């Protein structure tokens, strides 16, 4: 299973969702969809219809920039990051 690291702004929205969670999936999108199965609505908070990542959400797989279609290996680390915005 990949290890998904999530931002604090997201974990506060879903009961029982921690900052690091395991997820199955061949791609980043599959892994996030798996998390959405456990925490319904999570995918919507990270993706727009398409689906595509929201404009200020960045994802990295083992520290390399990634998209929803990026493939994921079983022991990969996925970082979901809130990009710099706001004030």
């Amino acid at each position: 299973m990949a290890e998904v690291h999530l931002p604090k702004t997201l974990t506060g929205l879903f009961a029982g969702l921690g900052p690091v969670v395991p997820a199955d999936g061949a791609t980043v999108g599959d892994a996030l969809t798996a998390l959405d199965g456990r925490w319904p609505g999570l995918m919507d908070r990270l993706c727009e219809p398409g689906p595509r990542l929201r404009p200020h959400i960045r994802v990295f797989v083992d520290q390399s920039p990634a998209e929803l279609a990026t493939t994921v290996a079983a022991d990969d680390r996925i970082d979901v990051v809130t990009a710099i915005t706001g004030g």
Partner: protein
Amino acid sequence: MRVMLLVGTRKGLFLMDSDRDRRDWRLRGPLCESWPVFHAIGDVNTGMLYAAAASDWHGTVVWRSEDLGERWEQSGEGLSYGEDGPPLTKVSSLTATDGRLFAGADYPGVFQSTDRGATWTLFTTLEDQPAREKWLEPDASPPGRLGVIATMPDHRDPQQLFVNVQGFGLFHSADGGASWAPRNEGMRADWPLEDPAWGYCVHKVVLSPADADRMYPQTHVGVYRSRDAGASWTEITEGLPSDFGFPAAAHPHDPDGFYVIPVDPGHGRTVHDGQLAVWRTLDAGETWQQLTDGLPGPHAHLGVLREGLAGDSLDPVGIYFGTSTGQVFASTDEGDSWRQLADYLPGITSVEAVVWPE
């Protein structure tokens, strides 16, 4: 009896609680994870609180609380125009009525929930309106991109609905939202109109709780009155310091009572001469009174946004407003005198007052 103010800000929702006397207030917040809140309401029929919010990171949701604000959860399920539709950037306005909850959104549209905000379905995008072609153009919307800034039912007949589309004006449905018609006749526009039926910038419009045929809008260029549910409008700006402002509130018991807070129409968008003032008419706009007792000036350079002014339903009426600089002011004598209830809040976007029965 519990009187509650729901204060939406750029950094979360705040709640203020008091009793019938409205003297002592307890402040709670920031709530809703400090998301920017555009509008928050309470529904006395269900006991629910709702807050429309949008995050740069996580999109648009409606927060909901079943216990008067102690615990909150969010839902955006169904708040979407779908895979092929335009993006939904924010929910700008909320209305609870007859067991339904309406959310006005940008791009312009209205969503409906019948399960207290848990899930949403698209109610209308005013498909039959020629103006729709214009407001779907990315560059045609006014700054802020608020879309539908109000959905207002006529409480005498749920089939009668008004929506206010930012920068385009008022539209009315007599058949529960199946079809729509513009209701802007008699309003002024100081800019060229593609069609005289629409293109009006109605910042805020209120229906009198005391007479549903009576409506008062504050527009970009004037304040108006309708005695025939928006079929025609008469300008009542004379006596005010400018024709420009954002918020408006109707007196809950007197159809001739109406409140506005005019501001400088230029870059400042702050109150005139640095004197914070609420302006009141008690004769349906024939004359205006400037109300300043207890309000700061002459160096109070602040504004009040579209949803920033509200009244409660008590007698004497309480009137409340929140400022762009984070103060909440209240009057419990219908506006004759004011006092500050809160300071140092984030910039305030909305204030609503709810009287909860025991």
